């Protein structure tokens, strides 16, 4: 397969939650794709739908109240939405691995870490206990856990946060997935440990030629790890592009403001730009363009007509009516 082949393709995915207070359109017509051995960062603030997108890909949205109402998720051309549940189970942890934010709550405290990695292997493959144990030790070595032969019999609480996250990664990678979904994998970690884990994920992505869906709210982490970026706001993709193009010239006002609101070394003590107002709740997304109440470039059209994601520059998509003029309007 060629290098730029799309390993995972999400097309027009919508996931709604039907609650007593109304319908929350948490993910609404979201499309993106990830290339082999590349990282796509899905960026956004709390409640923008980035984690629900990941859960929808894995078909782990609890129904009720949630429901995937439409869309396709193509894993190497095969639509996961059409698979029977039994086959979906072998996809989870098999062809798609997943790493979550809080390693402490994702690991089971009453089993040794070795047991948990071995379980991940034996669910998917016909391996004996001994083979699985050897594979587990090998995986622990791959994620650079010190002295894996001894650590394999440790319980999660005996490991530090960084080591626990390494165990989670070992479990996720045990069956050599083609796609790894990492949902805020370093948010709960300290910076020095974060940089260890980011370097580890980068090395493993190369080694296993995995496509990585990296979910985060941290733009600095995006700049360091991603090849492509999709910015989500209020359940929709606001902008998507190759990482350098996005940082060099953001074409959606939300992205532009988000970049300006983070402190940078080059502009010490300069006043930060802010985005007015608050992140809307999924139950009350504004009509038409969902960013319009906070947007400095808002026009009548933005209040009346929802902008569609379109290719404004080659490979650079934005969902804004005013992307063409933005460079002149927001310097």
């Amino acid at each position: 397969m060629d290098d730029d082949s799309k390993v995972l393709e999400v097309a027009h995915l919508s996931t709604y939650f039907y609650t007593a207070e109304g319908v929350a359109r948490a993910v609404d017509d979201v499309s993106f794709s990830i290339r082999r051995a590349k990282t796509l960062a899905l960026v956004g603030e709390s409640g923008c739908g980035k984690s629900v997108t990941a859960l929808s890909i894995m078909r782990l949205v609890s129904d009720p109240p949630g429901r995937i109402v439409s869309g396709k998720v193509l894993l190497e051309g095969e639509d996961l939405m059409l698979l029977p549940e039994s086959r979906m189970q072998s996809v989870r942890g098999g062809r798609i691995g997943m790493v979550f934010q809080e390693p402490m709550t994702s690991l089971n405290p009453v089993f040794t870490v070795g047991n948990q990695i071995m379980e991940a292997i034996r669910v998917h493959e016909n391996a004996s206990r001994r083979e699985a144990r050897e594979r587990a030790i090998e995986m622990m070595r791959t994620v650079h856990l010190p002295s894996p032969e001894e650590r394999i019999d440790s319980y999660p609480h005996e490991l530090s946060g960084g080591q626990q996250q390494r165990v989670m990664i070992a479990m996720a990678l045990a069956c050599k997935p083609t796609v790894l979904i990492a949902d805020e994998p370093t948010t709960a970690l300290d910076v020095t440990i974060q940089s260890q884990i980011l370097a580890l994920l980068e090395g493993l992505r190369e080694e296993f030629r995995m496509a990585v869906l990296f979910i985060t709210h941290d733009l600095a982490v995006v700049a360091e790890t991603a090849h492509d970026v999709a910015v989500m706001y209020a359940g929709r993709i606001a902008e998507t592009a190759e990482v350098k193009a996005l940082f060099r010239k953001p074409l959606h006002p939300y992205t532009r403001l988000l970049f300006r609101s983070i402190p940078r070394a080059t502009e010490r003590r300069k006043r930060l730009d802010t985005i007015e107002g608050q992140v809307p709740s999924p139950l009350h997304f504004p009509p038409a363009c969902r960013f319009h109440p906070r947007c400095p470039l808002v026009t009548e059209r933005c209040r009346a007509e929802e902008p569609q994601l379109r290719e404004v520059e080659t490979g650079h998509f934005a969902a804004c009516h005013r992307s063409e003029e933005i460079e002149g309007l927001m310097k």
Partner: protein
Amino acid sequence: MTANGKLVEVRDLTTYFPVKKGVFSRTVGYVKAVDGVSFSIERGRTLGLVGESGCGKTTCARTMLRLIEPTGGKVFVNGQDVFGLTPRELRQARRRFQIIFQDPYASLNPRMTIESIVGEGLVVHRIGTRAERRRRVAELLESVGLPAEAAGRYPHEFSGGQRQRIGIARALALEPVFLVCDEPVSALDVSVRAQIVNLLEDLQAKTSMSYLFIAHDLNLVEHISDDVAVMYLGRIVEMAPAEEIYDKPLHPYTRALLAANPVPDPETRRERIILGGDIPNPMNPPGGCYFHPRCALAAGCDGCDRAYPPLMEYSPGHWVACCRPGEAPAAAAPAAALP
């Protein structure tokens, strides 16, 4: 007493927590959460306190306000010896130093109206009549960018950023001269953080409060601080004016911390200094310099595994506790072995 216009002065502050074990809760050891910390903050200035989780930065701040009782050392705020105060004097003195907390969801009582939350300090200190207090609360809310009508509502009706504004209004009610900001924006959304940071800067410009700003986001600390102190396992390892410490870090831990800090710019692919290992157990820190087992310079140094290097003034205003400050690690550093 404090000299040369220093509003806050901390001298050799220590906070130890006993570790108890067994049926009789025998004390088997101590966690030296804060272990001989000294610094000062001038009026109207901000000291940023950075370090990784468990390094003692929050304990240090809370001990300074006597929310945790100190084990030793002295703290002066506005010339007053905070640890020498009687409980009654302490209550009076607390008007002058306030704190805002990290989690705006946990730090506001859900059963109280905003008016009673913000005005509670005024009631405790018997300031003003009911009508005057009401006016003052309205003023305070306005000064943090909330409508005066917010007074009658409850915390759950507000978003995270608005709640943090309420927490700030409460802290300002008694006109403090010193404000501890303990990770004030880390629980907030990125787009809301800048609003709160700007608000804190505006308030400081207006009232010349001094801030102790605790955060783990190094980019943010650089933005807001005049001076920065870096803590590791209960001790300050380096302290200097913000520009100085970010441009010329001297301690190998500060260097590693800055190198690990991701930069929001995909064009700069920096060389990563990756620090191996984890933070040691604070109950049983390594001998000598606490950092030496993870330090790239330790191999060529004959002393840092035996004695903790004292915090020395390397250049005017730039303090560092290291035997080999500013030295670049050798090419094949042992700490780089673990990716």
